[in-house]
């Protein structure tokens, strides 16, 4: 490791140590559930694995094994350790296998995700029909976060441990096998699987798998065929099992086979059949068909049919599925006018992002902003949008008929309202690594400067001399220069003067040629007689022009006419086009015509268009529970629906009641020093630490947890509990808390508690913390931390200026050189970002400032210690540490704040996101202020239910090891320029593996693993374009949808009828149908006490409190979209089928909600 990197990590760790010491001292004081900080620091993966699992000794063993073998092999070796009792303290065979499986999953997911604890419920032994025993693994939904390979290997490890412990194989019954098939199909339909195995495959796996895959029911759907089986506990689909079977075993068979082959004990010969794909192919009649060809594949065998066309990738429509109202389509699949694929990686790019010009963001009515997610046609499924202003912007036709390209966001804003048609959406930057990651064949590249210059360099031209010349701009030469170079050096025409000939038909080409034939040059502009075909031809080519009623004026015409085989005097130098030119691509593509008549080589300007639509908007918002909570203290119903603690403290339902006495379920704790019973974390008598106190719920015997943490009454054989229904004096607690921290009621608006606690011990938070949160305007998440969510975006190099930070401050952070190796002296120098540095959105900075004030107040007034932050301006947050933490994971990553951005996203090094197991395709996750997490997080607050441990910082990584992050980030390319061979390979639709471009993975494990992330494209700022997507600034859903359809009309590449059709089909109709169904099978609810009833009580009123009961689904919510949907269907010419569906629904609504006998009828009503 470079010394500078070492210094960087030491700096972070020393600040972390400082915070940790302060937090430890605070927690010792005793008000918290545990007297120590509950987020242990993990130096490496082994530490994380041990911490997440809570099995001592695992980390050491993992480190030993990692030295010698791969991670997968280590997982198997650990299975031996568990089986032989060297690791873990399990007595039963089931327990040993469970430990081995959990550890394997933890190891294979680098100890970050929650799958090993949440995704595996338990492992049991079950009796086979022949009396032998087999292994039964219960999977749960969160196993999803482990990914297919780890899921599949967990089965293998279970099987391996099984053989070591001499347990038999699972013998599936026939009905169980059939059940698997139905269940996996049902799960696929209701929830969706990445890979949908054929029924035969599922049955084949079920029959052969030596381990019984079982699980908890997820979802309400029920199987209808194979129900109530003796050994299957539910008729619902078992989501975890379905994932393991389909996305694990079925999809990852080749990977598992690698390991089964190496193990003597484990033999899964049947995997070969699965890999060969021969299962279920012999008998086609049993298949539901239609899935054989995955759409979006490359056109097969371009040479097969004559006459030929150019190389193209097949359009894919999948991204258009589930289109919803208010989220526009920007381009239908592969359509002219849509985004043009350009290759390259901008500095804020890569790792599932797409770069577009900020002018485009404005031109599409501000629907796209930095961080907006789009669903894309290729190469992956979704991208986060980033602004790049070194690519081309959109081309539009204004109301006055002028067609122009807009490369300036300010200009885009100026003309925004005058745009009649968006003829072209501009370029779409995708980096090579994206194609590698998605294993997608390369699509033909746009002809761009980076390609052209390399071809020019290959020619006889002295490019270096030209580059050095102050009079020549190679990137945007004059038309004379461009034509000169093309003719003289036999290089292809410069891309700036290359038009989109491939979109023009040969007949249009000829029509345009005829128009030029008789045209004149007036005042330096080519003046053509205005006809529709000529006007459209110019638009198709993206030739900028102006129009009058009779004429079309082209200011920049020389390259156009030269390419079309005219002399500068507009003399046509050819007679007619060949047969071949006419036949090329069925006459829809004039490239061959150009080839025949142009005096130089012309490349296809934009052969690949990428369809896409908006996914979800960018996010930068504080995370709050709903309703927001200041303190995790239970107050029952006493605080009203707002859970107002002050109100609850005065609550007295009856005159005789003492105000503030509220009955709640709350944990019973005992002081370790004096034995006093309390629910508090600190003893009210002596101030000592308290711990949960267990009793047997049946006989009341006091119980102690055993070594494994289990509490069982030896007499009654039932589990002990530390939870009581107690009457607590809320009034006293509330006012004691206020006086303890010397705070008045007036210093905050309202203190909100919770109705009840969901954690297993029901340990409440000290009320004082809530008071201070309320005072500082922050609220707590379920685990006691304060969080702020942001959409993840990558950035590998930054300018201090764009982060609102001075260069001096940047140097203090340890940045000394820019990317060229020059000393860092100016605000606008580009420097390479360090791996754990993050950029906060403005909103995040503001929120963290409030949090810092809260933390300081908490330290001073509650813990009696010195403040830690003492910040008043956001600049002072620079250099402070935060936790980054993603949903579905259980490990936080320490990051350092280095600046701020107006974009509503969290920019950070791609490795930082990858260490949280996120990519940047619109994912969002949160940051927490370091000290807040250390002081306020407790496992004892976590809900005692499936998934409760997810999204909680059970462990933290203080230092990112590039070898231990999500390897998707390793597929990012890190070069300054893609070679010429790459561009040529795209025309062959080559496999990305055939091209040699340096990826980040090449430096992993070397001294340079934290540096050298070069990019091909710069952008002047990482926050260009609108700060927020119009989706967020527009008011109602109707406004959004109207804007969406209006935009669809403007975009040339979008079919507005299809958009309307899809919005109705995927949004309005499901909403109408769903709500109508919900209406006629709805629950009801008491307006006074909130009690819910499955069915309307026969008494009419609430059985609990006598209050008024009302519906939960009303007519208004059922029919809200009816009129709009009908209007849209009419206005946008939807199919009769769609209109009829709406008409039938409309009549259903009428039938349900209108009284036949009061109905207005008669002709007069309809006239």
């Amino acid at each position: 490791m470079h010394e500078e990197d070492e210094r960087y990590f030491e700096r972070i760790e020393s600040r972390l140590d400082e915070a940790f010491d302060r937090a430890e001292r605070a927690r010792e004081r005793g008000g918290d559930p545990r007297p120590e900080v509950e987020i242990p620091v993990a130096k490496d993966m082994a530490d994380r694995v041990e911490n997440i699992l809570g099995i001592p000794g695992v980390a050491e063993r993992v480190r030993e094994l990692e030295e010698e073998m791969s991670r997968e092999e280590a997982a198997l070796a650990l299975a031996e350790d568990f089986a032989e009792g060297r690791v873990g303290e399990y007595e039963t065979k089931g327990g040993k296998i469970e430990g081995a499986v959990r550890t394997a999953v933890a190891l294979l997911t680098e100890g970050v995700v929650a799958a090993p604890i949440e995704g595996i419920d338990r492992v049991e032994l079950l009796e086979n029909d022949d009396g032998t025993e087999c292994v039964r693994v219960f999977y749960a939904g969160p196993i999803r976060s482990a990914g297919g390979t780890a899921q599949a290997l967990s089965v293998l490890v279970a099987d391996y441990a099984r053989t070591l412990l001499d347990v038999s194989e699972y013998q599936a019954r026939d009905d169980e096998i059939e059940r698997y098939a139905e269940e996996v199909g049902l799960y696929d339909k209701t929830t969706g699987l990445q890979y949908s195995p054929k029924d035969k495959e599922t049955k084949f796996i079920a029959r052969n798998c030596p381990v019984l895959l079982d699980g908890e029911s997820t979802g309400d759907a029920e199987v209808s065929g194979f129900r109530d089986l003796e050994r299957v506990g539910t008729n619902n689909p078992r989501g975890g099992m379905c994932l393991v079977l389909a996305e694990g075993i079925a999809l990852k068979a080749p990977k598992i086979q690698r390991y089964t082959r190496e193990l003597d004990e484990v033999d899964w010969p049947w995997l070969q059949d699965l890999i060969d794909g021969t299962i279920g192919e012999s008998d086609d009649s049993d298949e539901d068909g239609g899935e054989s060809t995955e759409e979006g594949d490359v056109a097969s065998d371009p040479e097969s049919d004559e006459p030929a066309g150019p190389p193209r990738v097949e359009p894919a429509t999948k991204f258009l599925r589930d289109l919803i109202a208010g989220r526009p389509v920007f381009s239908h699949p592969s359509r002219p006018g849509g985004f043009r694929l350009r290759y390259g990686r901008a500095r804020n790019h890569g790792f599932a992002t797409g770069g577009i010009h900020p002018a485009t963001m404005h031109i599409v009515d501000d629907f796209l902003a930095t961080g907006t997610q789009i669903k894309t046609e290729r190469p992956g499924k979704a991208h986060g949008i980033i602004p790049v202003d070194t690519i081309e912007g959109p081309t539009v036709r204004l109301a006055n008929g002028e067609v122009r390209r807009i490369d300036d966001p300010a200009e885009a804003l100026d003309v925004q309202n005058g745009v009649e048609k968006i003829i072209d959406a501009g370029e779409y930057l995708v980096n090579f690594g994206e194609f590698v990651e998605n294993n997608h064949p390369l699509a033909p590249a746009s002809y761009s400067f980076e390609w052209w210059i390399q071809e020019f360099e290959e020619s006889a031209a002295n490019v270096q001399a030209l580059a050095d010349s102050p009079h020549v701009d190679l990137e945007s030469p004059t038309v004379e220069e461009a034509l000169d170079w093309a003719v003289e050096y036999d290089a292809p025409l410069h891309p700036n003067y290359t038009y989109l000939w491939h979109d023009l038909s040969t007949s249009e080409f000829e029509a345009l040629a005829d128009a030029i034939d008789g045209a004149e040059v007036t005042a330096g502009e080519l003046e053509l007689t205005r006809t529709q075909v000529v006007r459209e031809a110019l638009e198709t080519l993206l030739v900028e022009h102006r129009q009058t009623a009779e004429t079309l004026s082209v200011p920049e015409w020389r390259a156009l006419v030269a390419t079309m085989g005219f002399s500068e005097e507009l003399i046509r130098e050819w007679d007619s086009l060949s047969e071949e030119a006419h036949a090329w691509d069925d006459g829809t593509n004039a490239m061959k015509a150009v080839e025949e008549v142009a005096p130089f080589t012309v490349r296809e300007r934009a052969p690949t268009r990428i369809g896409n639509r908006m996914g979800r908007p960018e996010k930068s918002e504080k995370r709050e529970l709903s309703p927001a909570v200041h303190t995790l203290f239970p107050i029952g119903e006493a605080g009203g629906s707002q859970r107002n603690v002050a109100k609850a403290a005065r609550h007295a339902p009856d005159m005789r009641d003492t105000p503030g006495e509220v009955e709640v379920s709350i944990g019973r704790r005992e002081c370790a020093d004096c034995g006093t019973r309390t629910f508090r974390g600190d003893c009210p008598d002596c101030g000592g630490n308290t711990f949960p106190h267990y009793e047997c719920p049946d006989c009341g015997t006091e119980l102690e947890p055993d070594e494994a943490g289990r509490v069982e009454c030896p007499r009654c054989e039932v589990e002990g509990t530390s939870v009581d229904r107690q009457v607590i004096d809320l009034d006293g607690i509330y006012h004691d808390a206020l006086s303890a921290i010397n705070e008045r009621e007036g210093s905050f608006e309202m203190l909100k508690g919770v109705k009840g606690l969901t954690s297993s011990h029901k340990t409440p938070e000290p009320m004082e913390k809530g008071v201070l949160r309320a005072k500082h305007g922050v609220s707590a998440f379920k685990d006691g931390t304060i969080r702020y969510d942001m959409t993840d975006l990558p950035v590998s190099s930054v300018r201090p200026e764009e982060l609102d930070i001075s260069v001096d401050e940047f140097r203090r952070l340890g940045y000394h050189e820019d990317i060229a190796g020059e000393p860092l002296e100016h605000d606008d120098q580009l420097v390479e970002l360090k791996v754990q540095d993050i950029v906060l959105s403005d909103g995040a900075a503001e929120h963290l400032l409030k949090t810092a004030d809260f933390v300081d107040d908490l330290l001073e007034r509650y813990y009696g210690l010195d403040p830690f932050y003492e910040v008043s301006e956001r600049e002072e947050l620079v250099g402070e540490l935060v936790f980054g933490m993603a949903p579905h994971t259980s490990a936080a990553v320490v990051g350092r704040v280095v600046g701020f951005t107006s974009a509503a996203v969290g920019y950070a090094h791609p490795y930082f996101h990858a260490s949280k197991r996120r990519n940047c395709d619109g994912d969002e996750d949160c940051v927490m202020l370091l000290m807040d997490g250390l002081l306020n997080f407790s496992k004892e607050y976590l809900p005692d239910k499936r998934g409760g441990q997810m999204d909680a910082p059970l462990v933290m990584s203080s230092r990112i090891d590039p070898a231990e992050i999500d390897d998707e980030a390793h597929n990012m390319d890190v070069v300054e320029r893609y070679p010429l061979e790459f561009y040529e390979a795209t025309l062959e639709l080559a496999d990305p593996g055939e091209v040699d471009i340096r990826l980040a993975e090449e430096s992993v494990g070397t001294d340079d693993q934290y540096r050298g992330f070069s990019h091909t494209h710069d952008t002047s700022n990482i926050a260009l374009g609108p700060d927020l997507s119009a989706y967020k600034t527009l008011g109602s859903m109707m406004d959004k949808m109207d804007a969406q359809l209006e935009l669809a009309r403007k975009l040339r590449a979008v079919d507005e009828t299809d958009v309307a059709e899809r919005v109705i089909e995927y949004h309005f109709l499901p909403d109408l149908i769903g709500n109508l169904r919900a209406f006629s099978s709805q629950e009801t609810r008491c307006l006074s006490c909130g009690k819910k009833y499955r069915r309307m009580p026969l008494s009419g009123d609430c059985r609990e409190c006598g209050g008024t009961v009302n519906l939960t689904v009303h007519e208004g919510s059922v029919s809200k979209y009816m009129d709009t949907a009908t209007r849209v269907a009419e206005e946008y010419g939807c199919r009769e089928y769609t209109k009829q569906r709406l008409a039938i629904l409309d009549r259903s609504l009428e039938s349900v909600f209108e009284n036949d006998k009061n109905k207005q009828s008669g002709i007069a009503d309809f006239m």
Partner: protein
Amino acid sequence: MAEETDRRIVAELAARGYNADREAITLIAGTPDPEDAIERAVETVSADALKVTGEQLRGLFEDERRDASPRRDANDSPSRASNPPVSPAKTDDEATNSAETVPVEAEVDTSAMGDGRVPVESGRQLVEILGDITGQSTGTGEYSDFVTVFRDRYERLAGKLRRRVNHRPADAIQSMPGGGNAEMIGMVNDIRSTASGHWLIELEDTTGVFPCLVMKDREIADLVNELVYDEVIAVRGTLADDAGILFTDEIFFPDVPHTHKPNTADRHVQAALISDVHVGSQEFAADAWSRFADWLHTEEAQSVEYLLLAGDMVEGVGVYPNQDEELSIIDIYEQYEAFAEYLKEVPGDLEIVMIPGNHDAVRLAEPQPAFDEELREIMSAHDARITGNPSTVTIEGVSVLMYHGMSLDEIIADLPEEKASYDDPQKAMYHLLKKRHVAPKYGGKMRIAPEERDYLVIDEVPDVFHTGHVHKLGFGTYHNVTAINSGCWQEQTAFQKSVNIDPDVGYAPIVDLDTLDVTARKFT
């Protein structure tokens, strides 16, 4: 004897190349000299007409009839005379329709000359409909509408149980001393099993709820398996010492009395009970349908005078996502037009009754009103009776409860396999009869539109209970009620295949209305 005359008239007309409607035959038969009347009738109607209608003949024979003494014999049923089922206005409709049905009628003609079906005499067929929601839907989706409908259910079903137990309201039981006996009629509010495996049933009446414990080792514990939410039952048992719970000894259902004696027709006449035609689906079994229609024209089917259709005439639009990909006819109106064409294949003298199903273009929430005017126009062939789902239809004195059967899915899902399954759909129907409600369970997949009364209660015991929906054929009797689930006319769909349902395609159960015997005929 009258029948014989009618048949001869039909045959004579047929021999001259004419078909005739009911009124025309009645008019001719009413003349003193039918043979002469036939000759004159034929002269009256134009040569290119294919059908002799009452309208054409009315003027011709009116006077004669008025003057002539009544033709009726002593053994003519008086009820038939006093119940003219077809109004003149309807007859007009028929006359108009006949023009559209030319090819079909012509076919009947030819077969009538051979050993085929002879058109049924007009005036024989008697249809009466009860319990139809159509045009009576007054609910506006208010909370109070829901309360009203459940209260109505409770009151009406409780009425059937009052003879069995001495009901104490829930709030009265709560204040009773412990240890005594108690009886209660209640709507099932909740069913759960206790930690020790016993069953706790929460019964509700208009005063509140009361928990009833059924011990797992009691014989009646088996009945708990067949309970569903929101049905009304009665219990008898002993109160616990603290009067907090009722130890249940007996459970009573509203049920059909064992002594129930079904009505039968007083002549040999048959009805075909079908459903789930699904015209418009790519899987519609057109060939089977046509074989069925052809068979109805044969002499063998001479006695089949009624055709009951229990819903899903067409495949519909938008019933499930991406349904358009599986439709052969995308347009809903064209689906009904095509269905009407298929319906025209059956003999014109069949009396047809139809109710909608979940694929039809009416509201899904039950009770479902019948097809609206627009669809009735399309399906006007044969002047079918179009009524709501459910409806009780009385034909020849035999009452048939027609219900599409959406609740069968829930019953089959909730009850143990041996009590209700797709293979024996009639068993699921027995439970509905036992509960005296066609769709007791609220919530879940069942959708209810609240009305001023519960149209889904089985108030009167029907003689025949006819459902469809599950595409499985099954019939049997329960307490002398004949339960019939028709099969379907749609081959196995991709969805059915995926959930392991093998439909019974192309079956028509034929009921002898004089004996209530059922014969299932297969047309595939």
